[in-house]
């Protein structure tokens, strides 16, 4: 493990750095990307870790079983102060290694499969149309985050999990509190409130079995001596509730901003609805909403392209930069909904926004479907949609890795 000595590391690139443009990586990351695929960067606590900006290196490292995702390890890097909060240490789905990870993933696979998600689509379309009708009735200006971008994923994940949507203001605020916290203490406080809420909810589900949703089903499968303890279920519930709405809502918001700022691309999408799935993957690639494809710690020395990642070294894969590796994506900084045209139909899907390896995003198919529905219903229902403030005046998130806007004023 590298020593967290600030003196030796203070010349290194400080991670993270804020974006200057909502859909492009920080200028400093762009400089790093030009220098090569692997970089040493310095974290808030003085420790250095590897930052991966090369696509091929990222794929190999994220699929390598010698890279651990176990956040409870002492040598696991806390990329931000909030990630030092105890609530984040053993977080399900993203923060466990096999065999526990495989068990959790298997329990949830049927609910997040492509087939299941496709079956949910008409329902999500109805929901989006209802929200557009509400916005039209209210009239401009509207905050698109509050009126549309957040309610879609929030209602969908509530229903899927069996969490009452009536509680949405509470769990949305606490999720933002957890994910945008500037200190471990603040993150822990918000996280514990969510934990206690889910604890109470699962207790009710245990008392009244047979309810709807994934959590109701799993509450019936809890076995303290088996694969799913009650604490496991709570950790899964927390991960799904948090992961299920914040990133998708911000991806809807920044996706709309990106489309509005590229009118020729929006026109191309309108001219041919068949482009929609490719356009969504291109937006996922470009915006790289979490800006991180994965954080790991090496459990053995790993040689990769002339560098050696030592056992105990932290590794962070940058999604915004691996998604701009010119070896994979020609004209990488350009937004092009026709990127896949002429080549292989799947080539635009090589982006690492959802990660890679066994921890690739559980909700990726759900997120894609929600984004397809959100963009198509919005621009169909409000064709003359425009930003309500200049791009430079958008209140963007700062100081972290998860990109987003606090509000998105729109007019028509």
């Amino acid at each position: 493990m590298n020593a967290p000595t600030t003196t030796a590391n203070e010349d290194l690139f400080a991670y993270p750095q804020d974006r200057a443009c909502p859909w492009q990586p920080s200028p400093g990351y762009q400089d790093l990307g030009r220098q090569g695929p692997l970089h040493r960067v310095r974290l808030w606590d003085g420790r250095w870790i590897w930052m991966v900006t090369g696509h091929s290196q990222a794929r190999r490292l994220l699929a390598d079983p010698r890279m651990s995702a176990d956040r409870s390890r002492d040598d696991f890097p806390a990329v931000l102060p909030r990630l030092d909060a105890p609530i984040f240490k053993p977080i399900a789905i993203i923060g466990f290694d096999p065999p526990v990870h495989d068990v959790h993933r298997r329990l949830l696979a049927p609910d997040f499969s492509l087939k299941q998600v496709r079956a949910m689509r008409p329902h999500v379309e109805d929901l989006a149309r209802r929200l557009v009708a509400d916005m039209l009735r209210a009239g401009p200006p509207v905050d698109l985050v509050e009126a549309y971008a957040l309610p879609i994923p929030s209602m969908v994940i509530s229903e899927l999990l069996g969490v009452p949507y009536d509680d949405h203001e509470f769990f949305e605020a606490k999720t933002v509190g957890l994910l945008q916290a500037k200190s471990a203490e603040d993150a822990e406080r918000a996280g514990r409130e969510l934990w206690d809420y889910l604890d109470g909810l699962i207790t009710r589900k245990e008392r009244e079995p047979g309810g709807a949703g994934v959590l109701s089903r799993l509450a019936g499968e809890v076995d303290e001596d088996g694969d799913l303890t009650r604490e496991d279920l709570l950790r899964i519930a927390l991960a799904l509730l948090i992961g299920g709405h914040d990133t998708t809502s911000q991806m809807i918001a920044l996706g709309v901003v990106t489309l509005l700022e590229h009118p020729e691309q929006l026109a191309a999408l309108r001219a041919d609805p068949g482009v929609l799935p490719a356009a969504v993957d291109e937006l996922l690639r470009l915006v790289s909403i979490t800006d991180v494809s994965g954080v790991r710690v090496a459990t053995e020395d790993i040689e990769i392209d002339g560098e050696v990642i030592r056992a105990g070294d932290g590794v962070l894969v940058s999604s915004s930069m691996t998604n701009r590796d010119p070896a994979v994506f020609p004209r990488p900084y350009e937004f092009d909904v026709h990127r896949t045209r002429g080549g292989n139909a799947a080539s635009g899907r090589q982006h690492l926004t959802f990660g890679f390896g066994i921890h690739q995003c559980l909700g990726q198919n759900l997120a894609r479907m929600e984004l397809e529905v959100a963009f198509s219903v919005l621009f169909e229902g409000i064709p003359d949609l425009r930003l309500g403030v200049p791009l430079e005046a958008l209140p963007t998130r700062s100081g972290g890795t998860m990109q987003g806007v606090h509000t998105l004023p729109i007019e028509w």
Partner: protein
Amino acid sequence: MTAVWVSADQERCISGGRCMAATSEVFDQNEDGLVVVLTPQVAPELEDRVRKAAYLCPSRAIRIGDGPSEG
């Protein structure tokens, strides 16, 4: 031209659905969300897309060979 065969390992599968999204003629998901190969012998015109599906598979559950697999 030699025929290409494809197999998929349900033990490794994490139900990402990338294969099915890329090549629904060849890959499907069962009720547990796990990969199912519909046609192990790949039609020549689908070979590129099957290779793409294998590349996109996050858990490397797809194997391409020149003969039928036991899996």
